[in-house]
């Protein structure tokens, strides 16, 4: 019962934040609504027992990426852009395509609805937390992708520094 109420509260946060992000005129408003949406999604992570990802979402997304976005909004002069047209000329075609894909999603979700009624087997060992399980799997089975991810982050750091430098 409590879970149902929390699900709808967080889903409302996520969806309303997302709609405001896409429709807001000012980029700062858009960023703040995106933070609201990310908080909603973080709450849904917590609701599904993914505590580690909840913490990562709060610290890394809201604390890191959104601050980066706000910094760039301060650096780049957006006052002129806020006064101009916000949507491009193909917006009707884009909306039609998105509606089509949405109808497709609903159709296939309806067709597969029966398979979601079976409750998932909660394979949690008592006395072992979510973070411990994640660490066990991440550092044994997924060790190579983990190392490759560190390489990807290094490339991203070097690339963004070079891109934002004054004279290349």
């Amino acid at each position, binding site marked *: 019962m409590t879970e149902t109420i929390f699900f709808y509260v967080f889903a409302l946060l996520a969806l309303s934040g997302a709609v405001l992000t896409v429709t807001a005129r000012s980029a700062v408003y858009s960023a703040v609504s995106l933070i609201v949406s990310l908080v909603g999604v973080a709450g849904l992570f917590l609701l599904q027992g993914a505590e580690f990802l909840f913490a990562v979402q709060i610290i*890394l997304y809201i604390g890191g*990426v959104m601050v980066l976005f706000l910094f760039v909004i301060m650096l780049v002069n957006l006052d002129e852009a806020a006064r101009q047209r916000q949507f491009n000329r*193909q917006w009707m075609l884009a909306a039609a395509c998105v509606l089509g894909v949405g109808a497709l999603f609903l159709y296939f979700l309806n067709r597969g609805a029966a398979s979601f009624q079976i409750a998932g087997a909660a394979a949690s060992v008592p006395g072992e937390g979510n973070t411990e399980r994640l660490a066990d799997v991440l550092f044994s089975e997924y060790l190579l992708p983990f190392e490759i991810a560190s390489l990807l982050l290094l490339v991203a750091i070097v690339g963004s520094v070079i891109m934002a430098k004054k004279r290349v």
Partner: protein
Amino acid sequence: MHPITTAHYLVLSAALLLIGTLGVLTRRNIVIILMSIELILNAVNLNLIAFSKHLGQVSGQIFAIFVIVVAVGEAAVGLGILIALFRNKETVHADEVDLLKW
């Protein structure tokens, strides 16, 4: 009230993904396009974690961690490109960047 099933999470994540796609396809401001991409990646994470719970496996959460890593790298590089673009062309609108068009 009905109990919350995996299908609820799937419908929610599909809705978030569609809103994000609409933002990418229709907005002109590149900063907001990048934020819509973050929205799409979040919808994917929600989907992965719903299936991780549904199947009782932890692999979905590992995949979500990798998606977050890619999203962070994409945001850093994308914003770097945006700063370089603004320095050279004084615009943040995606449809005014048409140097390669003829």
